[in-house]
């Protein structure tokens, strides 16, 4: 088999055992890798109803067929498990040298089961697997843990680790790698912590099986240079992702004051120009030639790497407009290993709840010092406040009641990313139907929506575009496991990806083959949700209620007086289901499942929920 190593490493932390398992080429072609492998393994192996933070959940690291091979932005891995945030399928991706090293050690995926009896670091070096004590860094942040690992193994190894947030099972704890990357905002750091797995370190030295290694090397290295050239010519990385902040502010899409407002006169203070002015370093993932990370000094002199999502949600959304202060909040989230987006939304929710009189407290929007303190209380789960906010906005709102659920900015339990959709129906749909909760990585439809359609429209063209983007972003880039930025930000052609895939696998796939795999994975994830929530209905795919509340409409600016409408949104959702071949609950029909080759998986789902 070329393109895949053909092996998965399965580790049991309870028994301290491991085994190398094989998979067939037929299985590999059906699921390709990354999210495809993770979703299939979790669907087959997890009993519905399992506690996401118990030993029966599994932590998966899954790679794609071009991982570890020099080509544009292939240094990424998917981390997955049942999500502590949503109770459904959860995953995320992050830049890490683990992508290359795990493949060179001979594996396309790692499955971690059970729970260690003490803090543990899993060390994988080719065929050798060790369970090493990690008590020395238990209770430490991700930066110190990373240094501790580098001191033992050198800087060239692949590392995944967690901070205090993961250890204490903050539900939105992430997995961290290198000095500035994080992934798995669906709570994958908490899953690691629940297993007392402080870190994974990987070193691999074997060749990765490829059909045409010389052709791939020539193509991949040439393309890396070309992406670099295009990026420099376009100027994208001058402001990187934070170029979008000023634009969102102009078009009334910026989250301000827990998404109550869509723009702010002080937003320029934290925009891409100011970020570039404050830049002290640029940061990227392995195999990246258009590095997106912009590092600044925070207000305590520490180096903090920022991008749009964390600036928007830890800045304007909290009404904090001082870049070093935002950098400080970002640094703390990174060091504690908690998600910057959910962290920002949790703080803004708490400030809003106080503002609305639903909760008593001193915390206010704009208070950076208090925000820092709260993040620490959350990471340590200090009772009662830190412990409650560590649960995320959905659960905190359930505890508070008094109407707070309406402005807990989440879908399916996962907080929304940094686009204020109070009058952007297509982007609201993209958050609504994201298969892991409200994540922007699945389908970013906002520019298409504002440029090529009427903002007022709830027509099928928006549902179709959401699906088109899901197939690429949540599909292709998540199962071939490569960063989407070359395509999405500097126009690197999608046709390059079947080219890379065919060079390593020896197959002759087209983009259409990829779209079928994308649809299959999305449908399987829906079945995962059905098994967990047999009484599921379309309301699970609705965005936060405050986006439909006329009293929350802007009073001035581009969308003054306008707000999403329930009936129209529901119609847009139905367009999405119709195009996808899903029923009125948002579950794939039998016919759709058959077409996607999921008859066996459908039978497994029917033991728990009905199909139409």
């Amino acid at each position, binding site marked *: 088999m070329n393109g895949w190593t053909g092996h998965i490493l399965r580790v049991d932390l309870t028994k301290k055992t491991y085994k190398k398992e094989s998979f067939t080429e037929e299985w590999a072609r059906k699921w390709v890798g990354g999210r495809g492998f993770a979703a299939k393994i979790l669907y087959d192996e997890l009993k519905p109803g399992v506690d996401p933070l118990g030993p029966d959940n599994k932590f998966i690291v899954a790679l794609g067929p071009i991982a570890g091979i020099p080509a544009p932005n292939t240094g990424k891995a998917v981390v997955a498990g049942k999500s502590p945030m949503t109770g459904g399928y959860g995953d995320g991706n992050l830049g890490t040298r683990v992508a290359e090293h795990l493949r060179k050690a001979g594996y396309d995926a790692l499955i971690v089961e059970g729970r260690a009896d003490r803090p543990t670091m899993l060390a994988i070096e080719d065929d050798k697997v060790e369970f090493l004590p990690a008590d020395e860094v238990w209770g430490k942040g991700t930066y110190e843990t990373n240094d501790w690992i580098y001191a033992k193994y050198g800087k060239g190894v692949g590392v995944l680790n967690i901070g205090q947030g993961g250890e204490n099972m903050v539900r939105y704890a992430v997995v961290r790698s290198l000095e500035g990357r994080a992934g798995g905002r669906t709570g994958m750091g908490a899953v690691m912590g629940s297993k007392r797995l402080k870190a994974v370190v990987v070193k691999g030295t074997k060749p990765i099986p490829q059909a045409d290694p010389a052709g791939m090397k020539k193509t991949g290295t040439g393309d890396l240079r070309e992406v670099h050239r295009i990026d420099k010519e*376009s*100027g*994208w990385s*001058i*402001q990187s*992702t934070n*170029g*979008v902040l*000023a*634009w969102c502010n*102009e*078009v*009334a899409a910026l989250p301000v004051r827990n998404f109550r407002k869509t*723009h702010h006169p002080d937003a320029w203070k934290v925009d*891409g*120009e100011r970020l570039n002015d404050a830049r002290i370093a640029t940061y990227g993932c392995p195999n990246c030639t258009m590095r*997106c990370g912009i590092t600044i000094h925070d207000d305590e002199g520490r180096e903090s790497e920022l*991008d*749009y*999502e964390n600036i928007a949600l830890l800045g304007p959304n909290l009404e904090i407009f001082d870049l070093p202060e935002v950098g400080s909040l970002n640094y703390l989230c990174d060091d504690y290993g908690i998600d910057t987006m959910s962290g920002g939304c949790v703080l803004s929710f708490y400030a809003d709840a106080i503002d609305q009189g639903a909760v008593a407290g001193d915390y206010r929007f704009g208070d950076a010092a208090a925000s820092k303190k709260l993040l620490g209380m959350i990471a340590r789960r200090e009772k009662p406040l830190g412990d409650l906010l560590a649960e995320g906005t959905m659960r905190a709102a359930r505890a508070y009641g008094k109407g707070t659920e309406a402005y807990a900015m989440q879908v399916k339990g996962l907080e929304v990313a940094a*686009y204020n959709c109070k009058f952007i129906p297509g982007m609201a749909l993209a958050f609504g139907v994201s298969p892991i909760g409200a994540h*922007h990585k699945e389908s*970013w439809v*906002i*520019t298409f929506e*504002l*440029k090529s359609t009427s*903002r007022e429209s709830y027509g099928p063209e928006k549902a179709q575009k959401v699906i088109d983007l899901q197939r690429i972003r949540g599909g292709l880039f998540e199962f071939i496991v490569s960063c989407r*930025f070359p395509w*999405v*930000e500097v*126009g690197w052609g999608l046709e390059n990806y079947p080219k890379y895939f065919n060079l390593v696998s020896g197959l002759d796939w087209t983009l259409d083959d990829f779209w079928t795999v994308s649809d299959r994975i999305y449908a399987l994830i829906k079945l995962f949700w059905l098994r967990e929530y047999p009484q599921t209905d379309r309301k699970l795919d609705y965005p936060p209620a405050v986006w439909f509340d006329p009293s929350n409409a802007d009073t001035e*600016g*581009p*969308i003054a007086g306008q707000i999403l409408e329930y009936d129209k949104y529901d119609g847009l959702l139905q367009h999405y289901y119709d195009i996808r071949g899903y029923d009125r609950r948002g579950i794939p029909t039998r016919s759709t499942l058959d077409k996607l080759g999921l008859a066996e998986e459908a039978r497994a789902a029917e033991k728990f929920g009905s199909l139409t």
Partner: protein
Amino acid sequence: MRITVKLIGPFIRAFGFSEKDMDVPPGTTADGLLGVLAVDRSRPKIVTRNGRAIAPGEELQAGDRVVISPIYSGG
């Protein structure tokens, strides 16, 4: 008539300013403004007026705030 032009991201480097007031003849369209600024027509972009997308042939009005941005794609 006087309008305000705001550039986003890489356009700032390309044209040497971030935001400025400009005097343009009455009847100037969005596309005409791109011509005045010598913006590469082939480069993907989104132009908004007062926060809403504007078609190339639409005439600008005095006091308009026009934003010219590359097509961001959400990271």
